[in-house]
């Protein structure tokens, strides 16, 4: 399967999740808009996925164990 075909399948599956969760709220036209947006988001994630990081690069978000006393 080509990369484009894989991407298309992924967008279809993501759209199916959104349709399952929110489809009852949206018109056919609005769902078309959701599908268009999900396809567009593919271009946002592509360079993120393509950028290689070594195993030790952590998320830039702090986590601190909590103790209330």
């Amino acid at each position, binding site marked *: 399967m080509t990369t484009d075909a894989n991407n298309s399948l992924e967008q279809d599956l993501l759209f199916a999740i959104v349709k399952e969760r929110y489809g009852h709220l949206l018109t056919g036209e609005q769902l078309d808009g*959701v599908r268009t947006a999900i396809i*567009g988001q593919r271009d946002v994630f592509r360079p993120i*996925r393509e950028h290689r990081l070594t195993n030790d690069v952590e998320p830039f978000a702090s986590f601190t164990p909590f103790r209330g006393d």
Partner: protein
Amino acid sequence: MVNSFVFKPIRELAGLIASKEISPVELTQTFLDRLEEFGPHYNSLVALTAERAYRTARLAEADIAAGRSRGLLHGIPWGAKDLLATSGGIPTTWGAAPFRDQQFDYDATVVSKLEAAGAPLAGKLAMIELAGGMGYIHPDASLTGPPKNPWDTGRWTGGSSSGSGAAVAAGLVPFAIGSETWGSILVPANNCGLAGLRPTYGRVSRYGAMALCWTLDKLGPLCLTADDCGIVLETLSGPDPKDGSTHPQPFSYNPDFNPGRRFRIGIISGVMGEAADAVRENFETAVSVLADVADFEEVRLPELPYVEVTSTVLMVESASAFEDFLAEGGPLELSGTGWHGRSPYARPAVLATDYIKALRLRGVIAREVDGVMSGYDALAAPTAMNTATPIDEEFRSRSMTSAGAGDLMGSIGNGCGLPSISVPSGFDGDGLPTGIQFMSRAYDENVCLAIAREYQARTEWHRQRPPEPIT
């Protein structure tokens, strides 16, 4: 005839109050009258808070008469973007129809701080619905109607701090508080010909402010001058136990800050992208104006997905912040949501691995950018690539992928939480303002403020005023 106290910077107004040439109550009345008369003309007013303003103003008057000064903001009226919680039955609509009747029984920390400094809250100011968090593409995305630009009411103010921009530019309040997740202070400052300061993330408590993206949201001032921005930020800043993101050290404004050498300012290679001719020309002129105090140098940043990382964080955090709103069909009640290509319902469709990867890259970007910026006092760029667009037209592409494609500085600055100030740099052929921004390293507000002050000391753009409206 405009009252002579209107359009004066905070420092001048404070001097007039100190010398008893005007009282806080008189000043408050002046601006309340203007807000009431002209606010609706620009679709910039949600609610007048006259009773509350007079209460603060009378206290200020008594304090000042007794020789008890609380600083430069004592007795200076201001306006709040309507995403700041205010108690006492005052609405806090978040600019959106579904929240038109929303009220809180507490005050946002910034509201409390400004009132503690003796600054009367004159009104709640219009904003783009939910701070633009649902993906708007048209200026009509506001409960109070499309925000009209005082320089040309056929153009819009920019968003999402639209009422804050219009009200200060039209002289309806001396300063206002806005918020920025990505562009919402700097763009109205650009479009309305104002100084707008986006502080370092964590400088100002967000307690009581509508949350759109917890790691991107910042509160900051829109004012007539860079000096005013420094004065206001000093009062707003400081740690707040109600907001764990706040920095432990308050900001101390130094209006005399000088590095003791010429400023070093970088310009990112290609940052002007598709800037309009007037924007480009005014930026180049601004650079030449600053040449007697600053050295400019082209800067190359490493190839990293700056725009995509910040976009991903924005999508995921906003989808989570408004998860219940999405599930209840709330976006269907909004007026400006971009259903075609920018639907808010696409935002939950992000894989966890993509989000975490974006957070990992965010750290890489923060370190790389800081490394580059350590050789400079600031990076400079046009604040926006265009002047204010027509109020009845879509202002950007329907495609999510172009969300910030032309806004490299915005994606870096907001993604890394860096301070930036925009000040007016001239006008285009239609008489609309352009802006230049100076972005510094984290916690270096005094540095970018100093550069902006040097620029304003050499130019008169910030002294230009839009025409008074005919009502």
